[in-house]
């Protein structure tokens, strides 16, 4: 068990490209931190730096009380689960798990006990232990990769998109299993994914990265309820947040969406934005149909998607045909071409500065 502390960690490649622009985070003992962001945002690089597979160009990296910047991966007391599992193809499942233990110099009986124990936790049968990785299904390989990490009893687990090679159903199943395992073992974990659903469901805290910069660090609920930037707002939540141009009224007490429709806001924070343009965000699930409300947006439906439990209505409004998605629970009978009145409530809006893309707190 150990904490992982990143202090102004940077990665600069020899060609001068700066992949990580100074990341600070303190992963507490037993915490599950998820690094999330689009591909190329630097999340895997950051994880590989923690693992010791990439050099640290600047800053201080601590695992427990030890500065590990220049330590070999094997000296950091970590275990890693790779995206392609990286199982040794020529070894049996048993030997895959025992490999690290043999190098540690444990006795045969102790190795056997540990491997059998972990196989039991992961529900791998004795027969499966004698097989080669290629004879296993994707889900089983995933389990073996996890087993190889667990069996070493590391103080930190690192996961590099471990579920991205699985099909949708298995992914949900393994996600639950990883969460349960991490909770029961209580091992500090850092998990990299580009999938925001995985990030939201697994992490105690999430770190959203974009082009090597931390956009926001917080609990899933914090990120969902108070996204710190436009990027986070659009990245977290599915379908993603509707973003539209709006203008703050001359008195700073209203947000004007179109010439006729505006939302009244009583906040002194907006006075400096009076008369200026802002970005207005509202989540699809927070939009409501408001029959007879004259302050409602007239949405022209272009596409309807039935998910069963929910219905997604895509459409546009206004002269510049701003796109908007509405999510309602249940089955909604609407067809392209319909006009639906949509109301936006004061409590559910997010405002962002047009220039800095940062959140404007109300």
């Amino acid at each position: 068990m150990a904490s992982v502390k990143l202090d102004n960690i940077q990665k600069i490649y020899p060609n001068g490209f700066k992949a990580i622009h100074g990341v600070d985070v303190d992963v507490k003992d037993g915490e599950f931190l998820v690094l999330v962001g689009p591909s190329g945002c630097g999340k895997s690089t950051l994880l590989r730096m923690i693992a010791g597979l990439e050099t640290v160009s600047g800053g201080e990296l601590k695992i427990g009380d030890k500065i590990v910047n220049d330590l070999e991966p094997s000296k950091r007391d970590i275990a890693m689960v790779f995206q392609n599992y990286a199982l040794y193809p020529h070894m049996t499942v048993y030997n895959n798990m025992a490999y690290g233990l043999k190098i540690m110099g444990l006795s045969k009986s102790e190795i056997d006990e540990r491997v059998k124990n972990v196989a039991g936790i992961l529900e791998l049968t004795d027969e499966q232990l004698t097989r080669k990785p290629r004879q296993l299904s994707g889900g089983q390989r995933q389990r073996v990769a996890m087993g190889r990490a667990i069996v070493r009893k590391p103080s930190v687990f690192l996961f590099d998109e471990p579920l991205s090679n699985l099909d949708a159903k298995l992914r949900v199943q393994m996600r639950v299993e990883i969460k349960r395992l991490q909770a029961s073992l209580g091992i500090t974990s850092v998990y990299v994914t580009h999938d925001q659903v995985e990030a939201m469901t697994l992490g105690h805290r999430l770190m959203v990265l974009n082009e090597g910069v931390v956009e926001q660090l917080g609990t899933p609920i914090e990120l969902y309820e108070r996204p710190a930037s436009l990027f986070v707002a659009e990245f977290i939540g599915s379908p993603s947040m509707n973003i539209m141009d709006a203008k703050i009224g001359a008195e700073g007490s209203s947000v004007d969406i179109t010439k006729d429709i505006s939302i009244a806001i009583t906040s002194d924070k907006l006075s400096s934005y009076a008369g200026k343009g802002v970005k207005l965000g509202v989540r699809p699930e927070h939009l409501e149909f408001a029959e007879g409300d004259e302050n409602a947006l007239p949405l022209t439906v272009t596409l309807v998607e039935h998910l069963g439990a929910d219905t997604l209505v895509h459409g546009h409004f206004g002269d510049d045909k701003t796109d908007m998605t509405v999510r309602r629970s249940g089955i909604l009978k609407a067809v392209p071409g319909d006009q639906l009145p949509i109301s936006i409530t004061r409590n559910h809006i997010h405002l962002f500065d047009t220039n800095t893309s940062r959140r404007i707190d109300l």
Partner: protein
Amino acid sequence: MLKRVHFGPSALPYLLVLPQILVTVIFFMWPASQALYQSLLVEDPFGLSSKFVWFENFEDLFADPLYWGSFQRTFFFSFLVASLSMGSALLLAVMADRVVKGSGLYRTLLIWPYAVAPAAAGALWFFMFNPTLGILPYILQFMGYDWNHKVNGNEAMALVIFAAAWKQIAYNFLFFLAGLHSIPKSLIEAAAIDGAGPARRFVSIVFPLLSPTTFFLLVINVVYAFFETFGIVDAITSGGPANSTQILVYKVYNDGFVGLDLGGSAAQSVILMGIVIGLTVIQFKFVEKKVSYND
């Protein structure tokens, strides 16, 4: 699911394989059958008449201590050529794999020896080690060693082994390098995290994963050492001194075209063919079991 694509009857596929079949028949099957037939004949010294003698040529061969000597020599030679050239090629490939800058140049240079014809390679080594004009005997002399492979059979053997192995290193290097490239990087990283140092990673991960390449090269190198080293031996030692470098393939030539014992020579080439077929079968049957192929 259908395992094969089915086409209607057409002459086209037969036409397309015809050139390959013709080449095989004309340049392999026909000469091989000629050798088989020849091996059962005895010709008179002037080549005017021949007599069918059944297996007499083979009986003579097996009774000839010189032939058994050549037999042993060939196995010794092949074993050393294959292990020396594969060993050095593997070492070079592992090193080249670690080179980041200028790896293209490095690789190109290492591949060049393969483009040298066997006779030219032989001539090169012949001059380098020539006891009277060669640079290396000259250097060795300063170190107090008197090199003369024209007199010393062991030195002559060492020389042809080195030359033959050197010639094959480039080829082996190319395959080992490709093999190394095909090992996923994450496997090496996983082993590093598991605590294995570079040497241990090589022994327990890299080398086993290279085994398909190693096995392929073993077959190729053994065949090379048996058959294709003729040019090198001929250019450097011509089988001497006192037959000490007369490997089987050289003896086939020497007895047939120099000694004009065509029947005996044909019998030797039949045996040689049998040995290589046998060795390849053994390699596929026993060595291949130790090979682990990836998915």
